[in-house]
């Protein structure tokens, strides 16, 4: 390579960003790994434990339960949100519609709201006595379905999960819309001439055409489901019992309420590894597909 064309001033341009990023994000990540190997209460000196925190985590029924709840949230954040997003994206593009951008903007809207506001609004909606949901159920004669949503063991996770779906599906929809608009309309015309119905067109043209968007939606929503914190903090704080306790909430309580900092750091490391693994596999999936399509 021609060394003389190297532009060493580039480092100067990178320096400020790299410094802030390094000091306030990268270095603390390394510290998290170190703390996760210690017993530390945040006040006195930490003692080195090796991998004990991790071994304890895997025997901690509360933590396992929290992880399982994260898995359950994946259904609401990823599966349901993607299905709904796909449904609305197809609906919006199935025929030339007036006001398409209007609907798109409206359906995407919850995505820009602070999760604290979202959580608070839904806590009201779910209020057993004067919440909007139970009011509507009673008004249409489904009073038997009314329940204390956020305090009900069988329903609390679903109730919070639905909020997640509600907040996420607009994002998936917008992704898919962009993807569908890139699919050549000639493909659909050809399919129609061959007598393909709506469903076949969707299955053989739309869905394969949206592979990349699907993978992206999957990564983003999976990460959101694993990281879920704000919403649980504002609605249930993990209750009733541990019914909606998630790893992020458990991490927060350990780190900042009962001061088991080392233990909390171990949770942080596990969560991060989980996220990196998921991202890695999905990105690899994307890459292999690209190679296939080039072949």
């Amino acid at each position, binding site marked *: 390579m021609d060394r003389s064309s190297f532009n060493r001033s580039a480092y100067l341009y990178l320096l400020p960003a790299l410094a802030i990023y390094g000091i306030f994000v990268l270095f603390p990540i390394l510290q998290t790994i170190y703390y996760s190997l210690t017993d530390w209460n945040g006040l006195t000196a930490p003692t080195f434990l090796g991998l004990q925190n991790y071994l304890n985590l895997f025997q901690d029924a509360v933590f396992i339960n929290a992880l399982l709840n994260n898995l359950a949230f994946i259904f609401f954040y990823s599966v349901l949100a993607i299905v709904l997003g796909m449904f609305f994206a197809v609906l919006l593009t199935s025929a030339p519609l007036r006001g398409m951008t209007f609907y798109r903007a409206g359906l995407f809207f919850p995505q820009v709201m602070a999760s604290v506001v979202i959580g608070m609004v839904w806590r009201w909606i779910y209020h057993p006595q004067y919440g909007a949901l139970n009011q509507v159920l009673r008004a249409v004669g489904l009073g038997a379905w009314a329940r204390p949503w956020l*305090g009900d063991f069988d329903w609390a996770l679903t109730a919070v999960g639905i909020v997640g779906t509600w907040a996420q599906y607009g994002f998936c929809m917008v992704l898919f819309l962009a993807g569908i608009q890139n699919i050549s309309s000639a493909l659909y015309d050809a399919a129609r001439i061959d007598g393909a119905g709506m469903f076949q067109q969707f299955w053989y043209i739309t869905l394969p055409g949206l592979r990349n968007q699907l993978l992206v939606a999957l990564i983003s929503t999976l990460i959101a489901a694993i990281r879920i914190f704000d919403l649980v903090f504002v609605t249930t704080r993990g209750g009733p019992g541990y019914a909606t306790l998630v790893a992020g909430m458990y991490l927060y309580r350990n780190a900042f309420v009962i001061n088991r900092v080392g233990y909390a750091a171990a949770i942080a490391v596990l969560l991060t590894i989980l996220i990196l693994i998921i991202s890695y596999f999905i990105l690899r999936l994307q890459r292999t597909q690209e190679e296939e399509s080039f072949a």
Partner: protein
Amino acid sequence: MSRFVCSLLVVLLVFGMLAGCSPAATTQQPAEPAKPEQPQQVTLKVWDILVSPTEDEVAKQLIAEFEAAHPGVKVERETMTFDQMKSRAKLGLSAADGPDVAQINQGYSDMGALVAANLLVDLTPYAKKYGWDKKLSPGIVARNSFTPDGKTMGEGNLYGVPITAELVGVFYNKEYFEKAGVSVPKTFGEFEAALEKIKSAGIVPINYGSLDGFVHIHVFAEIQNLKIDRAYLDDFIYGRNNVSFNIPANVEAAAKMQEWVKKGYFTPDFAGIGYDDSVAAFRSGGGAMMITGSWISGDTIAQAPGKFGFFLMPPLQEGGKRMSTGGTSTAFAIRKGTANEELAAQYIDWMVSDRAAQLWAEKGVVPVGKVEVQNADPLFMDLLKAWAYLNENDLVGHYLDWATPTFYDTIVASFAELMALKITPEEFVQKVEADYAAYLKSRNQ
């Protein structure tokens, strides 16, 4: 070369702009108290949890009077809820610019941990100097005391001073009692009979809302206290003599709670209602009784004078002695290393002065110290009477969540399952005991 100089300029320019637009953030910070630029001006940083409108009003008045009596002193007060204080106190108090005075929850997880980390000032000398030891009964001094290693509660040095009394008992709606034809019960049997009678009159017997968890502890403890004595409870809370949570009295108390759930004595769908909502519902007629603490009295009297009364959970036999959960507000403590220790002690003294007691009483809040009151709201008179009775007979019990650092999380989660009838009373006590036993084991290692 000029290329390099040019890029250097760009970076400098960017940093210049950073410096130019950033001071907005720093100028907002008040001068640190450690740097007294004007020698006269001292800032006392106080963190308290006096957030309800009534408490806030009294605190503001007392602080105004304190500042007037101490020229050059400015009290910088920060209020937060109990939960927020629980999560912030440890961190705040270990910072060099942390609060001088903070209102700390008693028990191992809060005060104990702070003492162990050497973050609190031993208040014993100040207690003698200002006569706090005479205002507080020995039982109350004990629950604010730790050995200096923070490992044993109930003995050693005094680390906190509470300001108001707290007692958990039964608030009742007089109108509903009349409607259902029941009077204040004298035995637990009568209490249960009253529940049934109120229920059949079509009124919710116990106004309840447990989305915020802790309310279960109060109801449970009131039933538990019927059958346990002070020796057991003290041992349990202070972690002495290897007592267990798995005892018949606790199983029976848990079973009683489930029985009440099955009989429909609590507000329907209570699991989905938050505590604040449930108090508001009670004030506007949501149920005949509410088992909770005296902290709701001030606002209740202000909003609905004359409408409510209070009694302690009645004993099994008439006239029998039984403990009652409660004691005091969380305690004012001083951060070790503060430059204003003497002033902080004066502040605490101000908060427990006779003047403060008088102000609290006027607002319908029971102060720790003695106070003379006439013509107050009947609810307040009930509370004063009950507090005097408990204090004189040494029947002030404990909040169970003081027992271990994780006890609150464990017991609240287990209660949720118990009250949803998902586990048996036996399973409930086993779950809680597992937490307690693990703590004792780790402490004795």
